[in-house]
Every structure is written in C-alpha cells, then in structure tokens.
C-alpha cells in the first residue's frame, strides 16, 4: 500500500506492507539510518523521532499510521554544513559516549527545547525519561540540553 509523508521537509511516497514499522520505513526504505533500533519494544527510546511534532518511538508506530504525517529524524536537524545547536552541545559537553542512544536523546531534547528555553534539571529528566543511555552518561546529557537551550535562547534574542 502506498503512503505519502514528509520526512525532514522532503515529501516522500513509499510502498509499505501493513506490518512495516515506521523505523523500518525510515532505515530500510528511506536509508535514514541515523535513527537506531535498540529494544524494538518502546522501552529504550533509541528510535525516537518526531511525528507531527510529537515524540514517538518509531518501533511502535506502523508505517501506515504515519501516512500524511510530518516526520523529523536526526538527519533533519543540521542545516547546510552546520550542526544543530543541540547536536553541537552534546559534542561540546562530552555527552556522547558510544553514541547509540544520542539520536533519540537529541530528538527528545529538541521537543523539550522547542517548548521551553529554560528547562530545569527535573524538566529535562522528565523529557528524557523515555530515553535510556547504557553508558550511564546522564549528567553530561543534562548539561548538554541546558547548554543547547541557553545557546538557542541567546541566538533567538
């Protein structure tokens, strides 16, 4: 069955099977392998993307259900040759260890920062509560989100 959706601001038309998951569509059909599959059961958050501006685990959404929606993946964040401030902040603060959870972490962070440019530690922890880092680097991840929010806020002024 054919579905149409917008992925990272590009209109795409794809043929999918009823059981194709959004993550398979992104990684296999569209070649967007920045989105990672961790547990495949919605518990780790590695496959988090924005779907119509809501955070979703793309392993728990059927591709068909994304018909007509707007998807943002990690690949959609950078502009030309410049990383998104959140990506840069994750590098600057040393928040990335093995890196596998980071695309999901950054998408969840973006959702938070879009709504709140002054997030508290608790708000950051709550926003990232669906994303697991097994290198146990949460302190630096929280630092990264704060720094990114600060930079985006200064940039906006």
């Amino acid at each position: 069955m054919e579905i149409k959706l917008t992925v990272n601001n590009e209109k795409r038309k794809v043929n999918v099977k009823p059981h194709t998951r959004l993550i398979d569509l992104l990684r296999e059909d569209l070649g967007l392998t920045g989105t990672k599959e961790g547990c495949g059961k919605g518990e780790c958050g590695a496959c988090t993307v924005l779907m119509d501006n809501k955070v979703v685990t793309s392993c728990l959404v059927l591709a068909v259900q994304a018909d007509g929606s707007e998807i943002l993946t990690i690949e959609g964040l950078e502009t030309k040759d410049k990383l998104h401030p959140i990506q840069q902040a994750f590098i600057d603060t040393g928040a990335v260890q093995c890196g596998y959870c980071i695309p999901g972490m950054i998408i969840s962070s973006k959702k938070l920062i879009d709504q709140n440019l002054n997030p508290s530690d608790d708000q950051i922890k709550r926003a990232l509560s669906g994303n697991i880092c097994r290198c146990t680097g949460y302190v630096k991840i929280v630092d990264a989100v704060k720094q990114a929010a600060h930079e985006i806020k200064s940039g906006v002024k």
Partner: protein
Amino acid sequence: MKKQSKDVKNRPTSSGRDSKEYFRPKSKKELKEILKNNDILTIIAGGTDLLVSNYQKLYKIDKWLDLDLIDEFKEVKIFDDKIEIGSMVTHDRLVRLEKIKELFPILHSAALDLGSPQIRSRGTIGGNIVTSSPAGDLLPPLLVYDAEVVIISDQEERKVDLNTFFTGPKKNVLKEGEILEKIVIPLKKDKSRGVWKKVGKRKALVISSISLALNIVFDKDNIIKKAKMAIGSAAPVPLRIKSAEEILIGQSLDSIDYIKVAKAAAKQISPIDDIRGTAEYRISVAKNITKSALKEVTK
C-alpha cells in the same frame, strides 16, 4: 558532510512480505461496515502494546483494523452529569485536558505516570482498558470514578460497568467483533479528594509492582460520606477494595484506623510472585501505600 535523504532512492522491496488486508475506517459507519463483513480482525489503537506483544511476528497478522482515523473516537464531551472520553484519546491528550485535571485528578496523575513521553504520545485510554492488564495504570482511577464503557458491534451497542468488564489477566467481556467506543464517567456534585500511588522499580517506563487509587467524599463536618478505593497489579484484575471502603464510610478525619483499613486491603488482594515483586512484598507494600494514601487524603 550531510547525506541528504533524497540522495537515497526508495528501496521498497526491503520491507517484507506482500500486502494483506489493512482497514482504516474514517467513521463509525465505515467501521460497522467492516465489522459486518469480516471476522477475525486484529485491532490496533495506539499500538504500544500490540506491537510489543507481536514483536518480530507482525507479518503473521492477517487482517488489521486500525482505529486511528476515526475522529468520533477521539472526542471528549462534557455534559452536566457526565464526561465522555473517546477510546482513541491518547494519554498525552488526557494529561493536557484541563477539565480532566480539575474533575478527575487521579486519572490525570495516573496518565502522567504512564510509560514515557513517547508511549503517552501514541497509547490510548481505550487501549489501556482493552489490554486489560491488572497493571494498567488508568484502570484503578477509572474504577474509583465509576466509569462505564460503551461497546459497539455492527449490530448493537451496549454499556458495561468497568467493575464487571475485566474477567482475568488480559481478559475482558469483549466478544469478537466488538469495539470499545468511549468511556463514560459520571460527574458528581460532591467535592472529592483523591490520591494516586504507583510503586515500581523506576519512575518512567515501568509496569507497576502495585498501584492504588483512592477517592473520598467528606461531608461538611469532615465525616467520610463516600469512599472508593482500587488497587492494581495485585490480583488477576484491577480490583475495587470494597472491604476497606466499608470501614472508611462514616469515619471522621481523626477516627480513621489506618491499620485496620490497610489490613482489610491486604486481605482482599491476591497477588502473585513475578519479576516485578513477590506476593509477600506486594501485600506489605499494599498496606503501606494504603496508609500513606489515607494520610495524604486526610491532610
């Protein structure tokens, strides 16, 4: 530096076997038509349970029925004497509804504690009920608020008291071809005070080891006029604790015998040993959260 996604051609062959039937009705009318002409449909709401329990065998599902496009099932209607919540209302929306927060604070708190932001974006109130897990987070609050569910099929419509809806772990009274359309919660004139407690191994993304919802109506002299209490994850179904309710009614704030109520609660549940805790642990925690919930509500 950046690999543009448009540089990559679609590779549509990599997504598995060929198509089977996938129904996406846009209205209740279309839904009934599909129900009339098909048996054995796998119904998907938010998919947050279904895709987990069918992980790696999704291709085995023959006929999908996706409720996601039925706008009538996403409506929330407020009347003088009741509120109707469509089965496809997500947890995230439930959390954001000011009316729910104001009128049904325990339901609000439970929805806020459920899963993760990602799960709350997709998971639905109807899905939580139909999955019928004894640990379903919204179920104890819905029980204490005397919720009813409206069930439809291609032929008829029936209303079921949620207290009689669950028949066992992940079992309920729904028959083949029946769909949960909406949840109806009566609006009561009495002002009530409620508490929600969820105990688990971590705060997010956890299936509760035990949960409790308590809702109490005091009269003007601070005597308990009505009491409703329900416990999750401690019996084959989410359970109303009527023995504790009976003890509470008629008590004044300072005359409540916390230990007596807690013992009654512990006696009524029948927990099992599992990965999330032993039966012994659950009985002990049931007593403790009963006491702490009572203290909180009478503060």
